């Protein structure tokens, strides 16, 4: 009301201050973009200097290696089916590592998330402790745990499995506790009133509400874990990554095997991605009903 009654002079003042704010905003975003570009360019230059080969020396060689691999695979295309069959067990081992790690990690994450959600925790005093446990397991890259465990337990799938499971527990635990916070506590109260134990309350009061979300996050994690399991194989934890490193170490002559492994990995990752995304869509539709 006051604005209307005071004539044109305040309008001009408002306009001026508005324009000043616009200019200030433009200046700030300009500075932010400038800083960002400087960071990006100088970061690229630093990375380029510290790399063994520079970007512009290597860029024309980028297709040499894929061409070698494809060429060799094409020359020996008659053997390709045999090679794919040969590496299938390794692929299954990689998938198994990912699957078991996702299962155990999800189970662990579930317990951790229930123990660290307000209103559900068994021991409310210990909520910060369980939260920090999740933070640390989430922050540990799988490779760190895997390498240490390979030293202690010898090679094979178990170190990789434990490493991925630990990280999964932390990562899923955080997501699950976010899901838990949105869950309705009334069923829990109801179960408390009839004298249910903590595990009964969680199983009957919380689980039915959160299960679709849990499953969908678990599936997403399974996709991530397949990639992680292949990478851990590359540092010596068994599975298809290990075979890939061996065939690469041989250099030319075994590139047809590398090509077979590339194909297996690529097809698996894409297939699991598609399968899990359609499953997740169905789950989220079910949850919305």
């Amino acid at each position, binding site marked *: 009301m006051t604005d209307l009654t005071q004539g044109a002079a305040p309008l001009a003042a408002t306009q001026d201050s508005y324009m000043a704010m616009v200019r200030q905003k433009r200046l700030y975003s300009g500075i932010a973009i400038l800083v960002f570009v400087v960071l990006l360019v100088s970061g690229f230059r630093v*990375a380029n200097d510290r790399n063994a080969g520079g970007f512009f020396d290597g860029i024309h060689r980028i297709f040499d290696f894929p061409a070698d691999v494809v060429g060799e695979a094409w020359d020996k295309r008659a053997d390709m089916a045999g090679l794919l069959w040969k590496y299938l067990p390794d692929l299954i081992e990689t998938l198994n590592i990912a699957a078991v790690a996702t299962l155990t990690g999800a189970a662990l994450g579930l317990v951790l998330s229930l123990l660290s959600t307000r209103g559900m925790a068994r021991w409310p005093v210990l909520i910060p402790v369980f939260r920090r446990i999740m933070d640390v397991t989430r922050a540990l890259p799988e490779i760190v745990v895997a390498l240490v465990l390979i030293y202690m337990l010898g090679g094979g799938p178990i170190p990789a499995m434990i490493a991925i499971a630990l990280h999964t527990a932390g990562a899923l635990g955080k997501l699950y506790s976010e899901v838990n916070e949105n869950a309705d506590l009334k069923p829990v109260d109801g179960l408390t009133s009839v004298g249910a134990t903590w595990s009964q309350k969680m199983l009957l009061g919380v689980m039915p509400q959160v299960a679709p979300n849990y499953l969908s996050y678990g599936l997403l994690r399974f996709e991530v874990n397949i990639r992680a399991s292949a990478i851990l194989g590359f540092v010596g934890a068994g599975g298809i990554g290990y075979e890939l490193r061996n065939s690469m170490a041989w250099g030319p002559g075994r590139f047809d095997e590398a090509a077979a492994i590339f194909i297996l990995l690529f097809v698996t990752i894409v297939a699991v991605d598609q399968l899990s995304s359609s499953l997740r869509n169905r789950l989220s539709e079910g949850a919305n009903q």
Partner: protein
Amino acid sequence: MTDASLSMIDRQDAAQALFRRKRLISVAVPAVILLYLTYIFFAFDVMGLAERARLDNAMTLIRDTYSYKTHVTRANRSGEVTIAKEGERPATWPEGQSPDWVAIDGETVTVDLPKGHSVLFLPDQTAVYRHPEFGDITAKLDPSVTIDIAEDRLPEWISYSRTRLDIRTEAGRLTMTRAKTEVFRYFFGWELFWFTLDSPYHGTPVWSLLLGPQIDPDRSNIAGAWQDFWANPLWHHGKVAWAIGETILMAFLGTMGAALVALPLAFLAARNFTPVVVVRQLVRRVFDFVRGVDALIFTILLSRAFGPGPLTGALAILLTDTGSLGKLFSEALENVDQKQIEGVSSTGAKPLQRYRFGVIPQITPVLLSQILYFLESNTRSATIIGAITGGGIGLMLTQAIITQKDWEEVTYYIVLIVLMVIFMDWVSGILRRRLIKGGGH
């Protein structure tokens, strides 16, 4: 009436069927999981784990994480005695000096160990381990290793062959081979973490570094201490800091590069911006392809062209994440509100202006928070990729683990990696919260 009761019975039947199905599922799912785990139990050879597991390795590892050992070594041919922490050259005591638990008297050296144990190096290539309960154990080179205990009476903490004697007790360890006789004494902590023995600042308390007289005439205390700490030849703090910087750099370049490449492509993959089906499908398949190839394969391919280093890692992250971010961005673009774009175009805006003022402000908060999530998780990925392709803290970690010697360094790196990841999580969390708040205005 009949209709209603019929449908009642129908509904009851349906409910019964639902219950039966739920009951079946609640039994079948755990049963399948149990079966699968049984199969895994045999496929992963869990039973064989007991024999593959190296408990002694585990013990060394755990012991090294919180303690270090000082070696007192006599070269058996020359008779020369050296004392060094972890047997490292920069951590060797200068000639003629020794810690107070080692007494050198001509050719006789007395090494005191905790709990009343001690070791004597005597002339004639003889060493005596004095165990307070077991008694003296005398070992001599003659010319192979001999010991004054009958082989069938050896306790299990002594391992003995003609080429090597190894006595391990809770107080320390004595080994004798033809080349050298060596005693290890364990101490709590990480050795020489701040300064090595050749630095003038070794053993100086913090307050006298800050306030006390100048120790090195050429350098001020703080500058000198910083230089010696940063260049510590055992711990390489400077190099480690660089490596962490390199890892974060890989994550930053990879994520931001991917976002810059993915954003224009996402417009081509979004239904409401690209009506041409062929283009849309093509771009989407490109996204699927680079996502499917995975960072592992990109790392291998790129390191062939560019060699190992942070650039290779950054490009591998960039390529993979272009697929993931492109997919997310195009989904965000498909959800934009058309009204704002119509409003902008009603003022006569050209297509580029429509995007700039009608679309970008809508999706910026979503995009930025996705990018920050990716930056956070790529810090971990960069550690892993660095371990494969050689760059950053990941490489230092794998090298330290492969040498199987310096587990305190491995512990140091692990702690730093965890701190780095938590720090990046924290920074991106703060930025995300501020952005989402700002986006709400």
